[in-house]
């Protein structure tokens, strides 16, 4: 691929990545509320990943085959996380019970 592609320069992408990383670190250390922090950090991480994939890996200028190959794992991983949700709920419920028992000093035997 020797032709020069349109789009932002690699240097400008570097500045974007650096700026987003700084914002990420500030958010992680300064924001106390968990949900807004998580949403913001995941959003910034996905933006950075997209910049690397689209411009450094040249996906922006590639044929559709490679785009499909590149994005398929994202869909499957999303499906994987979604399928883990019911288990997450069960673990969270058990953890709440354990935390409550530990707090009240219960001697109930915890069996898995």
């Amino acid at each position, binding site marked *: *691929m*020797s032709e020069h592609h349109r789009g932002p320069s*690699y*240097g400008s*992408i*570097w500045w974007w*990545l*650096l700026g987003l*990383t700084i914002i*990420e*670190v500030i*958010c*992680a*250390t300064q924001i106390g509320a968990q949900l807004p*922090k*998580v949403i913001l*950090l*995941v959003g*910034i*991480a996905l933006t*950075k*990943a997209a910049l*690397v*994939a689209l411009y*450094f*890996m040249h996906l922006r200028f590639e*044929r*559709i*085959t*490679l785009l499909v*190959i*590149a994005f*398929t*794992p*994202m869909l*499957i*991983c999303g499906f*994987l*996380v979604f399928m*883990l949700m019911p*288990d*997450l709920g*069960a*673990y*969270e419920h*058990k*953890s*709440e019970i*354990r*935390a409550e028992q530990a707090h009240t000093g219960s001697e109930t035997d915890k069996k898995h």
Partner: protein
Amino acid sequence: MSEAVAAHAEFEAYETPLTPESWGKLGMWVFLAGDAMSFGTLLAAYGAVRFGSGDWPVPVEAFGGVTLSSLMTFLLICSSVSMVWGLAAAQQNDLAGFRKWIFMTILGGALFLAGQAYEWTHFLHAGLGFTGNPYGSPLFGTTFYVITGFHGMHVSGGVIYLLIVLIKGWNGHFTGENASPVEILGLYWHFVDLVWIMVFTFIYLI
């Protein structure tokens, strides 16, 4: 036979948008898709274990800050830029530029590994072990070392890959029209950087 050859020569092969321009590049992308699944599974499992745990420590507090890991992230981002400049130099027949930028990429990767080695040593001395730690859930240390270690293995392999390409391409083997192997190498290195972006966010910051 000559008639068949002549008839064949009159037709131009129709290239669909699905046809890869480089089989090597397609092969690397297929490999990266599989590798992405490996990391995705590890991170999904990390999320499942963490959010189901009642005593998971706050990573920023347990790690004593994110200065070193931020610096490591910065190093990998810089090495991604040097990699893409090295590829551009190779494609433009700039042998000196190719050597310089691939060397800088190797340096970035090596410094990242050194930072990770220092970080692991520091954490192990602080009591963050593979099977237990003073901060909370034992799996906090397990997941940290497994995920960062798996990524570190990829960085190590990438540094070796870069060295091989730099040595083999030292006299211009990969410049001009022959720069495809450098592009394929670049795909792998950018993938390593991309994965670290996700690992840094999920393991260190959230």
